[in-house]
């Protein structure tokens, strides 16, 4: 999932091999596969340090713990591709579980509970997108910060006794907490979301527009792309991912809570950036979000196995974010160099 399909080799120009031999091209390619490489190295190092790491039961744990981050990070990835950010994802997810929990108290229907969670997530996303675009805000930071606060407050207010509510329909606990052929079911949810987003982003016109809007918003207007609609849809899908994450998380815990998803916005943004997508928009794909989510999950799990305290886990992930952002800066510099080399070659 780490390869970049957009630079897949094609033999249209015979000069390809020479083009790729210079240090700048090699550097750019290394940066492209860097995150996957680092993930492999981390996994190798950890499995040497603690033999328990590679045991199937532990790998299952990692998948279950990472699934929610991965699902929400894929939505976050779409928003970041458009030069945006969604700070409300954690609170949105919490609100979705609470609404789902309230529905469950009225009627024991998995369908209705799931529908309630998905609709809540998408509705919050729609509010984010609509206010951002039609409120003509300069940046989505403020509106999603506002919905973060509103959703968290609403979730606390709505939940009975303002705290965790036990119980979920069996179908949902099966999705979140059981396994099929030894693979946690949540893995299949991640896979399903990944396939849908891949089809949307890579094979459909809508996906091309997402990249265009992120690459150059003004040019997108000049080229007649419906920029406003594209932006709103990205936030709706990010919200929908929160709803899907809510189903998985409340299934795993057989509960709903206004406190779920705390700092999930940081985890998902970190996953996207660590995975190698550009924070400046227009660059990245869902592989980046998935690699980043797995990396966060692996590091947390390994530090747990090694009995490293939770504070150091936060520090470690913070440090990795810094490295990832610097890699993004370095990539931009290398591309500028590549342009100069191109100009020199065409002389």
């Amino acid at each position, binding site marked *: 999932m780490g390869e970049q399909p957009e630079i897949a080799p094609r033999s249209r120009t015979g000069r390809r091999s020479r083009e790729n031999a210079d240090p700048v091209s090699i550097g750019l390619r290394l940066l492209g596969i860097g995150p996957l490489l680092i993930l492999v190295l981390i996994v190798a190092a950890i499995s040497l340090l603690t033999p328990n790491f590679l045991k199937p039961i532990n790998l299952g744990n990692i998948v279950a713990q990472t699934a929610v981050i991965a699902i929400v990070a894929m939505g976050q990835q779409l928003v970041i591709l458009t030069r945006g950010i969604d700070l409300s994802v954690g609170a949105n997810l919490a609100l979705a579980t609470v609404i789902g929990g309230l529905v469950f108290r009225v009627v024991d229907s998995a369908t209705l509970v799931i529908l309630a969670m998905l609709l809540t997530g998408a509705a919050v996303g729609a509010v984010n997108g609509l206010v951002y675009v039609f409120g003509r805000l300069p940046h989505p930071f403020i509106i999603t910060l506002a919905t973060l606060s509103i959703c968290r407050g609403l979730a606390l207010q709505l939940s009975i006794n303002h705290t965790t509510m036990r119980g979920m329909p069996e179908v949902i606990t099966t999705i979140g907490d059981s396994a099929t052929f030894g693979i946690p079911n949540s893995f299949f949810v991640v896979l399903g979301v990944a396939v849908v987003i891949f089809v949307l982003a890579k094979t459909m016109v809508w996906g091309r527009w997402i*990249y265009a809007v992120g690459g*150059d918003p003004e040019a997108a207007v000049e080229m007649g792309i419906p920029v406003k609609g594209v932006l709103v849809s990205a936030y709706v899908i990010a919200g929908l991912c929160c709803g899907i994450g809510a189903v998985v998380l409340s299934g795993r815990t057989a509960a709903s809570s206004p406190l779920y998803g705390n700092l999930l916005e940081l985890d998902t943004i970190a996953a996207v950036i660590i995975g190698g997508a550009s924070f400046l928009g227009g660059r990245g794909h869902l592989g980046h979000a998935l690699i980043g989510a797995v990396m966060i999950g692996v590091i947390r799990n390994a530090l747990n196995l090694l009995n490293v305290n939770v504070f150091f886990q936060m520090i470690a992930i913070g440090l990795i974010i810094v490295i990832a952002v610097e890699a993004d800066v370095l990539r931009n510099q290398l591309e500028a160099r590549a342009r100069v080399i191109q100009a020199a070659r065409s002389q």
Partner: protein
Amino acid sequence: MSALPPVLTVRNAEKRFGAVHALREVSLEAYAGEVLALLGDNGAGKSTLVKCISGVHALDEGEIVMDGSVLTAHTPAAARRAGIETVYQDLALFDNLTPAQNFYCGREIAVPSWLPRGLRFLNARAMDRETAQVLDRLRVKLPKLDAPVALMSGGQRQAIAVARATVFARKIVILDEPTAALGVRESSKVLELIKQLRAEGNAVILITHNMEHVVELADRAVVLRQGRKVGELKPSRANQQELVSMIVGAEV
């Protein structure tokens, strides 16, 4: 000028931005197979005129006629549908997309047609193939067709923007200072492209400050000063000085 009627006629164009009178009774005609240079000092109204033609601004008074019919409800999309392509100074290229993706951005080849535009499936192969053919026809050499435009030089990017305009232009191509940011070699490449556009029967409107390029390329030159058309002539080595005088408003 030509036996054929003009492709584009601008009649008595007036445009005000608040107190600034950007265009005053400007009229011009553009013919197929001809390069029309639009000259003038900074602030003379060249870019305003071009933006009115390409649908970015609306005229306060006057009209724009294409092939005998007056263009109404003039927006960038409508202008493009009418066959007017514009290469803006900022190129409007997407750095993160490949040349082919840039070519077709906003008008992707996609199926099935009964779906809303955004939900159609891209036919990447067709777009790649068409792009390669156009670049080949225009003799634009790019190192890689599958690399993002960010990795290409200024001249290559300019060539891509011009080539994109040529694909979709069916009548008129407007170029706003296409060589301003380029070196000598890369400029001459773009000039070649412009000649080719003309040879293919487009009406080319070229804004430039480079008098050498005007003399080398333009079949006709229209000079604007302070929003007014102050002259129109056929540029040559002999009247180059006269042109410059018209632009700056000094006597010869």
